[in-house]
């Protein structure tokens, strides 16, 4: 290799020599977009803009020297810098030093990482506006009609009486499943009293909500009701979940395939991708319900590129939403699978170690002895040696040292 120091001699023409033509308007537009996204002190924003402007000019000039047209060179130079919003985010992280480690760790989820991040961001920041869809749990279980106010007199009220009166106010009969209710709270029995701080509410829904709060019951198993014909059924979430199960199947082969380099789409890769999606679901959608997490109310299996899901019907929309988000999302398209057979892992690591900090997502020392390499590389990692991409494999954990 001829040594590169020559490359960095202070050039006399420097970055000022590039043509101020098509490339200039393209790069200006990109820089303006970035500039608008930077939430940093003004002086710092200007410095970043100046520095990148200089970089782009010089890069365009270099590419043109290789025979590339001006416009093509500008497009390429901009592409190398990547998406402006991603870059802005990195500058923000750099500004607030000490690290952007936590972001990287989140991304460990691997496949569908884009979907995950997009979805989470939407949930946290957009509250449903904009183009992304946001899953909202179904609200009203109460049929249309005027709210029924329920007020408690001075004396303690027994649960049995409360349920009966609620049903009467709605001109319905009460059906009460005491066994599941007793599992929620030892006082939730026919002769037990309602919590003493409960005084009533404006609707059945608000009354139940307050009672759940008073009893400190969790989201996954609490007091619930359903209107069924001429009755109101009172029971627990677990009871309703067990009696209203949906079995669904989702073909996710397209979702996996779309994120892979076409030449890397193999049956194994698709199956591994489907498995990743399954863990995304069991990790995000009411995790405690899944058999995979020692729960008992939901189950998910993969078969090739298909997911088979058995869940309480109320949970199904969340699964559907997550998958549709994964389908629609995509700034961080996965373009390659890095094969990591245990014997190759260290070599792969040492080869690619310096390519980009994005590799933190894919390969890092979990602790002093374990090097964990995940099979997915994101788009930022460019120009991987072809021989490293030849064989699909799952991720590997390696023990280093003794």
């Amino acid at each position, binding site marked *: 290799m001829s040594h590169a120091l020559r490359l960095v001699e202070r050039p006399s023409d*420097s970055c000022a020599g590039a043509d101020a033509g098509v490339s200039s308007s393209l790069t200006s537009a990109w820089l303006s977009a970035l500039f608008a996204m930077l939430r940093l002190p003004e002086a710092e924003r200007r410095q970043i803009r100046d520095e990148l402007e200089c970089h782009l000019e010089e890069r365009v000039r270099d590419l043109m020297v290789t025979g590339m047209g001006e416009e093509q060179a500008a497009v390429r130079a901009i592409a190398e810098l990547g998406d402006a919003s991603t870059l802005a985010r*990195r500058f923000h992280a750099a500004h607030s030093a000490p690290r952007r480690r936590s972001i990287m760790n989140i991304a460990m989820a691997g496949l569908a990482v884009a979907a995950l991040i997009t979805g989470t961001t939407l949930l946290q920041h957009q509250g449903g506006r904009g183009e992304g869809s946001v899953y909202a749990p179904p609200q009203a279980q109460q049929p249309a009609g005027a709210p029924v106010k329920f007020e408690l007199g001075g004396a303690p009220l027994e649960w049995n009486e409360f349920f009966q009166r609620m049903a009467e106010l709605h001109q319905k009969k009460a059906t009460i499943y005491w066994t599941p209710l007793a599992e929620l709270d030892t006082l939730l029995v026919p002769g037990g009293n309602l919590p003493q701080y409960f005084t009533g509410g404006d609707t059945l829904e608000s009354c139940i909500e307050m009672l759940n709060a008073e009893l400190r019951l969790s989201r996954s198993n609490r007091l619930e009701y359903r209107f069924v014909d001429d009755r109101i059924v009172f029971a627990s979430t677990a009871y309703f979940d067990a009696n209203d199960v949906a079995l669904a199947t989702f073909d996710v082969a397209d979702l996996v395939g779309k994120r892979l380099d076409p030449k890397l789409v193999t049956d194994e890769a698709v199956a591994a991708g489907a498995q990743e999606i399954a863990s995304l679901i069991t990790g995000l959608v009411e995790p405690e319900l899944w058999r995979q997490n020692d729960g008992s109310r939901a189950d998910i299996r993969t078969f090739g590129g298909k997911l088979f899901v058995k869940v309480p019907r109320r949970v199904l929309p969340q699964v559907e939403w997550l998958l549709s988000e994964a389908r629609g999302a995509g700034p961080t398209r996965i373009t390659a699978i890095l094969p990591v057979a245990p014997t190759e892992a260290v070599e792969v690591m040492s080869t690619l170690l310096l390519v980009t*900090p994005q590799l933190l997502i894919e390969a890092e020392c979990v602790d002093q002895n374990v090097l964990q390499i995940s099979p997915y590389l994101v788009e930022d990692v460019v120009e991987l040696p072809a021989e490293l991409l030849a064989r699909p494999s799952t991720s590997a954990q390696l023990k280093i040292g003794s």
Partner: protein
Amino acid sequence: MLSKDSTRENSELVILSLLEAGGPLYGYAISKEIAARSDQQLRMTPGVLYPLLRELETEGLISGSVEEVHSDRKSADESGPESEGRKRKWYKLTAKGRKRLAARVDAHRTWRKVIDLFITGPSGAAGDGESKEAGR
């Protein structure tokens, strides 16, 4: 010893080493230098490099100074009274950066030694990996 952030630390090591060996450098020159020195095997994309430079500067490991580069062919749409020319930012190592570099080099050598032990395989002579070359 081995750290959880080895990739980031190695990127840092590369940049600090380049600045120590090659004197003040600007961003684009650093990226070309990395590619050239590694015989094109390593690339640090600009989208990663510039934020990292900013981070190292924030940490006080490198310091930047801006040089104005006058152009005789300025962009027509570049407005503003003060837009005299392009501003290139040169980076150099600080004393703190030099200390950090020494620590990184140390850690890197330890790391390589451990990896070498691993590469020699289960029957390999654990403990005498001192002089062996790394995987590549």
